[in-house]
């Protein structure tokens, strides 16, 4: 019995129990199997897997032959190295706390068992994704988490917008996964195996090789890396496939926290980091990763500053942070990217869960309808501020260490691309605190602005306001635990310059290597000081706009109406896709596939063949007159001709 097998298979067992018994037997106790399973996974991770990984022991075992066809041999196998251990800690910790939180958040919901069943199934797929030792298992987990994401975004299945958002997420991910799938094929064609270890060991051998792809001679490592990165773009919501993530907020908030902040969307970064021996071979691919990441980061941050939906703001923030992680991978600082993934999981899950706590209380997502919630929800407020400070990169909080690491890596890579993305990351370091604190000030400070609808029905806004209450303990305790993570998780990676040991990067070094950076201590302090200063300016500016001069944002929006509109409407990307892809597709479906292929060709064949047979038999049956003499004539004529034929042929 291998203990680590419990990690993925406990949640799978919980899924089976819940999907079979949840509806009729467990009902409002459906959370028990799921919560116990994921906490079990967490305990195994912390007590068994993590200490082994810390001791430098790498497990790489094939347990079962999955597919065998000639030289194509795929196994179910597990690789547990430092990178997997970090991912396991992130996934099981966040999943455990979010499962517990969900018990309170989803209490009394009609599909309670279904929610927990899918959450367990998701956890299983995510763990298989990070623990696999080959690309096929990565792909299996990759598609599995996408499927569960679809189930859970569309969890409120009677709501059309939720069903549409689920479809959108699934279909947009198809585009990325198509490239990813081809990338996996290319790896098999090139290396003859899908196992990580031989592939990465032989990766250096393909440097400089070219391959004919669709008629062009392209560099083999670049091609493979870019195809793999396609999948990461889709899964981790980067430009141009980022459009599904904000819509995915239609799902229940714990789902947004677990799937669309802490775990699934980070699978792309995990994959890029895992495949670092391939990415390292191609400068083009690395620069693409860095620029796409930096562009998404800046782009999403500029959208977030004007949005009014509390969850969408956080979703754009997630996009932005994922972009930062890709930026780090793109400049070769994979460890910094994974470090940010790790700290981000805590503070972003916390932001989402705290937002869920707010939504639970006020029953709206619109921050313009909130305000002054500080005194009713002190715990939520406190953890929200902690998460925001961490996200903003304020020194001392975990987000600071990882974000600073990324910005410094970009600066210290000393390439033109590195300098460019450093500038973009610095801009993001200014925007992140601004929109995060705008969110806080509008939600928790000032006066309550909601309740307009109630007034017209004879209830005063004050009357409603008194009903706000803090969320139950089952929700606030996970919040507090995550807040501890949001503050302290980053302390494992304090850089040497601040007196730390950078243990995190050292732990990952066997897998991710060590980037070649050049920079003096003075430069490093300068970069750090700059990003911290502008983060503080961002917070101060948000405070000035949304606490002191609350009339200013509106005036500015009116003055720069063009820019405001572009940001508010998310650069019209959705409209652009609607116009260039959705509409033409629908047109082809409607006018070609339905009107011609279906109505004319398919129905023509399907109805035409029996129609022709019918018409022919209509003629043929006229022969049967029912008159005995006609039959007699046929018989006589038949006999005559038969005899004549026999005689003539003799």
């Amino acid at each position, binding site marked *: 019995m291998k203990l680590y097998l419990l990690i993925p298979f406990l949640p799978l067992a919980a899924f089976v129990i819940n999907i079979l018994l949840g509806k009729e037997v467990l009902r409002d106790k459906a959370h028990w199997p799921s919560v116990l399973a994921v906490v079990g996974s967490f305990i195994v991770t912390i007590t068994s897997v993590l200490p082994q990984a810390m001791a430098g022991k790498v497990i790489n075992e094939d347990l079962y032959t999955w597919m065998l066809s000639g030289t194509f041999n795929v196994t179910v196998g597990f690789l547990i190295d430092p990178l997997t251990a970090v991912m396991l800690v992130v996934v099981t910790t966040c999943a455990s706390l979010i499962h517990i939180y969900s018990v309170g958040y989803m209490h009394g919901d009609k599909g309670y068992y279904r929610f927990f069943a899918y959450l367990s199934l998701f956890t299983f797929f995510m763990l298989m994704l990070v623990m696999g030792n080959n690309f096929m298992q990565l792909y299996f987990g990759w598609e599995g988490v996408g499927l569960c994401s679809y189930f859970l975004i569309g969890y409120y299945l009677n709501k059309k917008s939720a069903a549409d958002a689920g479809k959108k997420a699934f279909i947009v991910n198809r585009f990325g996964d198509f490239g990813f799938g081809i990338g996996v094929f290319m790896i098999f064609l090139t290396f003859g195996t899908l196992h990580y270890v031989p592939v990465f060991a032989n990766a250096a051998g393909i440097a400089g090789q070219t391959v004919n792809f669709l008629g062009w001679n392209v560099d083999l490592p670049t091609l493979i890396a870019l195809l793999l990165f396609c999948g990461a773009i889709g899964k981790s919501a980067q430009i141009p496939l980022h459009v599904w993530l904000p819509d995915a907020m239609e799902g229940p908030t714990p789902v947004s926290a677990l799937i669309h902040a802490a775990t699934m969307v980070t699978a792309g970064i995990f994959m890029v980091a895992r495949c670092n021996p391939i990415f390292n071979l191609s400068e083009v691919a690395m620069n693409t990763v860095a620029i796409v990441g930096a562009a998404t980061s800046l782009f999403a941050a500029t959208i977030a500053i004007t949005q009014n939906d509390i969850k969408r703001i956080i979703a754009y923030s997630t996009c932005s942070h994922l972009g930062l992680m890709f930026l780090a991978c793109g400049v070769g600082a994979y460890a910094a990217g994974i470090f940010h993934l790790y700290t981000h999981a805590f503070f972003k899950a916390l932001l989402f869960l705290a937002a869920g706590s707010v939504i639970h209380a006020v029953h709206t997502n619109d921050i313009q309808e909130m305000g002054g919630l500080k005194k009713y929800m002190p715990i939520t407020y406190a953890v929200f501020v902690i998460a925001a400070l961490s996200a903003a990169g304020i020194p001392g909080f975990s987000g600071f260490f990882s974000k600073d690491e990324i910005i410094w890596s970009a600066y210290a890579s000393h390439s033109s691309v590195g300098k460019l993305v450093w500038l973009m990351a610095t801009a993001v370091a200014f925007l992140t605190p601004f929109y995060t604190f705008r969110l806080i000030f509008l939600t928790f400070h000032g006066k309550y602005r909601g309740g307009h609808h109630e007034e017209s029905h004879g209830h005063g806004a004050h009357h409603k306001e008194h009903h706000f209450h803090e969320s139950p303990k089952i929700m606030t305790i996970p919040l507090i635990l995550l807040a501890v993570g949001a503050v302290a998780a980053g302390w494992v990676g304090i850089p040497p310059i601040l007196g730390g040991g950078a243990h995190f990067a050292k732990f990952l070094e066997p897998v991710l290597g060590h980037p070649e950076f050049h920079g003096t201590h003075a430069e490093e302090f300068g970069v750090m000081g700059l990003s911290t200063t502008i983060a503080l300016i961002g917070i101060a500016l948000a405070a000035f706009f949304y606490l002191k001069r609350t009339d200013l944002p509106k005036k500015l929006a009116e003055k720069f109406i063009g820019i405001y509109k572009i940001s508010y409407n998310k650069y019209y990307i959705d409209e652009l896709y609607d116009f260039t892809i959705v509409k033409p597709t629908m047109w082809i479906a409607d006018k070609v596939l339905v009107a011609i292929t279906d109505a004319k060709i398919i129905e023509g064949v399907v109805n035409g063949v029996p129609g022709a047979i019918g018409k022919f038999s209509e003629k043929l*049956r*006229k*022969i*049967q*007159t*029912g*008159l*005995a*003499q006609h039959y*007699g*004539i046929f018989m*006589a004529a038949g006999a005559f001709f038969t005899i004549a034929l026999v005689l003539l042929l003799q």
Partner: protein
Amino acid sequence: MVPLSWYMVLSMVVFAIGVFGFLSRKNVIIMFISIELMLNAVNINLISLSHYLQDMRGQILAFFVIAVAAAEAVIGLAIIIALFRNKATVHVDEVKEMQG
């Protein structure tokens, strides 16, 4: 001595009359008589050839034909009576329920 060909021609003429009668008359009794003519044309043929070839098997077969014709006449007349009782007609063109 009457030559064989005369018998053969007689047989052929009788058979042709039978066929013509069967195909041209609507009255089912006439049609029935036409069938008897055809059968007897065959009998003439069988017996004349039996005599010519000095082989008794032809005559034996003629007896069989006569016996079968008798049985067939019994059944055929019974059907005609049943038809007449039900339809009050013996004309075949008025009985065509089996048409397509």
